């Protein structure tokens, strides 16, 4: 990983793209990085396209603009491939990660000629098998950590466990499912 990583998230209101960006900032912070995690706000409502951003760096981050030339793009909802220019400014030596049940070969023609690496994950499958409900952001968080090489997988899982134990202190029954989703996603991303 270079010492300054920029990630852009595309999702739909209610899918947790903002939460995922904040969780990623959180876990990267724990490894000693400088971080930024922020959503782009508009008149959001369930289902409307939303954007969230991460900067992760070895140095203090002072810039407060949106991200136009990211190294990585995460597409939480593949229907956005048709309506939003998700590869806009995406660096060729970067990568795009798409949540889809389709194969990589089927996705590539929808990426407007993007020449960089393409990764996919079936977050629906991971989420349903591990949590019994569709929460795409947990599997995608693990997948982007792996794709962008943000930190060691073991460290990631350890930090996330601590974070879930804190976050879900009042409902510990969901911790296991979330942890399994992360572990499975690390294997399923391709």
């Amino acid at each position, binding site marked *: 990983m270079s010492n300054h990583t920029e990630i852009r998230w595309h999702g739909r209101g209610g899918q947790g793209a903002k939460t995922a960006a*904040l969780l990623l*900032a*959180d876990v990267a*912070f724990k490894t000693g990085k*400088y*971080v*930024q*995690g*922020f*959503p782009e*706000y*508009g*008149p959001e409502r369930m289902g409307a396209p939303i954007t969230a951003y991460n900067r992760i760096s070895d140095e*203090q*981050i*002072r*810039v*407060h*603009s*949106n991200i*136009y030339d990211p190294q990585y793009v995460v597409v939480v909802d593949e229907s956005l491939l048709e309506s939003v220019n998700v590869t806009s400014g995406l660096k060729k030596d970067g990568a795009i990660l798409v949540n889809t049940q389709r194969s990589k070969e089927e996705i590539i023609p929808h990426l407007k000629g993007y020449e960089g690496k393409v990764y996919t994950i079936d977050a629906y499958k991971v989420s349903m098998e591990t949590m019994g409900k569709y929460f795409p952001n947990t599997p995608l968080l693990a997948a982007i950590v792996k794709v962008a090489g943000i930190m060691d997988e073991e460290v990631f899982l350890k930090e996330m466990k601590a974070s879930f134990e804190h976050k879900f202190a009042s409902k510990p029954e969901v911790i296991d499912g979330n942890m399994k989703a992360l572990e499975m996603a690390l294997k399923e991303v391709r």
Partner: protein
Amino acid sequence: MAKRDRLSGNEAVAIALRQINPDVFPAFPITPSTEIPQYFASFVANGQVDTEFITVESEHSSMSAAIGAEAAGARSLTATSSCGLAYMWEELYIAASNRLPVALALVNRALSGPININCDHSDSMGARDSGWIQIYAENNQEAYDNMVQAYRIAEHKDVRLPIMICQDGFITSHAVENIELLEDEEVKKFVGEYEPENYLLNPECPMAVGPYSITDYYMEAKRNQAEGMKHVSGVVLDVAKEFAALSGREYGLFEEYCMEDAQRAVVIIGSAAGTTKDAIDKLRAQGEKVGMIKIRLFRPFPASEIAEALKDVKAVAIMDRAESYTNQGGPLGADVMAALFRARSEALAVNYIYGLGGRDVRVEDMEAVYETLKQIIEDGDAEETYRYMGIRE
């Protein structure tokens, strides 16, 4: 011992308030400041503070309740944004004229219309003549540090004026970034207990607050407010000095970035200052003599100090995140240009309106401003001094 954390600007201010543990916090929610009372309400529910938290039905009432509490002798505050501040207008002047050191955590947002929830400074700039002290932040760290210093400034016996601690809506209020927090005990000790000299609940000294002022007295009352304002700069610097000893973080009336030998300068407020610093570093690496002044204290306005800091600059761009419809620029532009005029400055000055309604400010935008200043120096003429940045014509 400083504690490293990562927090949004709203969380950071809420934590400062928990550490301060004020007496009374009346609140009414409005985006993007809602999280401040929301986090604070959980501190109240968890017994982490013993503040009287009052949910009211409007901002008119939240400021009225804060004023009433403060007049009674209680350290009070509220939080708001945009139209919420507009709805407090009448009360802002009452807090100031009664010399009540109420604090307001303001999360800057555009005023309607068109209706918009994103950042600009039109809300607080509109309130700049209300008699409140205004302090602005670049990021979550500064919002936190300014909140910790707020009551020391406002309650100082030579000042006794209300204080607005401003940060940029969403851009810093909702962005999670690294931050260093002080220990609870350190903040408590730094802020100290509030010991008002005159207050309604003092049976030893019955008094009236906010009575009618006949023409024969009104002007002297206003002049007294101005006298309080005159002491603010000195107190801000004294408090900042003590704060630096505690935290290691230094603050002034404004921050000078690469100004020592700068020929071109930007004067700016808020989060876009950080973006400007990145632009400066890029241009400095190419040998360009560019710098920036970031306003921290906007009211009262440190005019002579800013003119002094700009004395060797050939061209300056003053950046306003608010319109004032004078057909010649924004409120910061007016104040800086007046300061330059009185200092007999020969700098060529332009005033940009930028970032309204959350319009994004990129490093490239600020580089372009410096490029424009270069051209102005070459031409020896600023030509149109009232400009818009990043506008589609």
